[in-house]
């Protein structure tokens, strides 16, 4: 596979060479996330982390950034209306 211009993170537009450079400097996936925003985009790493975990053959779960709620982006209006319904109960 040619990795030179492979886009790893589509949400934040980050390519493999950028990531590879940081890996060579000894940074962990968590640090790479914080330095490049890879995994901080719209899908919250649901696309790019899977690619990276495979490329880097990471098996140690502690080195993989944690998943946090919500499962997918949610509009505030919907969250608020849920809250208002709750209040009426």
């Amino acid at each position, binding site marked *: 596979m040619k990795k030179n211009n492979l886009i790893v993170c589509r949400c934040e537009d980050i390519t493999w060479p950028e990531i590879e450079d940081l890996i060579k400097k000894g940074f962990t996936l968590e640090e790479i996330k914080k330095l490049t925003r890879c995994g901080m985009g719209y899908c919250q790493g649901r696309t790019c982390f899977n690619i990276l975990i495979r490329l880097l053959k990471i098996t140690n779960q502690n080195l993989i950034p944690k998943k946090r709620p919500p499962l997918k982006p949610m509009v*505030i209006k919907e969250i608020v209306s849920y809250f208002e319904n*709750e209040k009426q109960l």
Partner: protein
Amino acid sequence: MKNNFDAIIIGAGVVGAATGYYLAQLGLKIAIIEKDYPTAGSTGRCIGGVRQQFAHPPTIQLMIQSVKLLKEYQEELKWDIEWYQGGYLFLAHSEEKKESYLKAIRIQKEFNLPVNFLSPEECQKIVPDLNLEGLIGGVFCPTDGQVNPFKLTFSYLKEIKRKKGKIYTFQKVVEIKVKHSQIIGLKTDKNEYFSSPIIINCAGPYAKEIGKLVNLEIPVEPERHEAIVTEKIEPLFPCMIVDYREDGCYFVQKYKTGNIIGCYTPIPNIPGYSLDSSFEFFIEMPRRMARLIPKLKDVKILRQWAGSYEMTPDGNPIVGETPIKGFYLNCGMCGHGLMFAPAIGKALAYYIVKKEYLLPLQDFSLFRDFSKKEIMK
């Protein structure tokens, strides 16, 4: 000897990194020991706000210094730390709140801070989409701002490495050695021994646990604070918006990316080390934000997370000496560690190396009277 240092810092959060940066600049051979990776603690969980609007004069002096340093860093650290002076706007929805802000303004003016109490309409000039319902006015300081906590911490670390300082990650300090009331070294869970006559406790919410290793009681208690981030949107407002009502919140738009990031202080507070996400926060925080800026109703929430505040009895940090020679504290930041770090790191380093006071550190001493509270916590 390989593991022999002039000073060792426990914790690679922003406070440890800043302290290390200045110690290395003053010529000390330093090491930082971090149980996880740098910024894994509170630093990587904060929302990046920097303000000078406090009521406690030493804290105002501290923050004026920090802002000055942050301005210079862009050049000095040779990395874009995303420092941006968009200001801080504290909203008043009651006469009582207004009074307490006016009182603080009088103190802040003595330090020449450009703070002013604005009418609701003037507030709206800064935040065009602000909901004026129930609003009496707000205090604005245009020289407050925001910074990227990761970039700031990693740029300090980069400079420390350049000065031959060492950063050990994924090693936890489990033992501190003291001989005749003088620090001599420490041991990590990897069974490595590091010797040094100086150890600085920059363990953030874990400061108390480090204290236990030398039988020293440090009054720092962790409290869970949650945060939320939205998708990227067009620029809506430049400043941190602070609503201190019981069901208030504070949030800012990252000028570089356009995400809005915010949190609130839960009532009652949630003591302990838990970093779980709560459903209550997930439904409550968006409501509070959209109440202040109704336009946010159409914006999406991407993620919620949690971090720890490191609270002291009076809401001020604990910095400086302890009864053990060579054991120093730089902790108890009370949720302001990012903004304190530049000036407080520098001040402690200058105190340790040159016995020079860049700031009134006595007011942040472990030996102070903890009964007077900061009102603009």
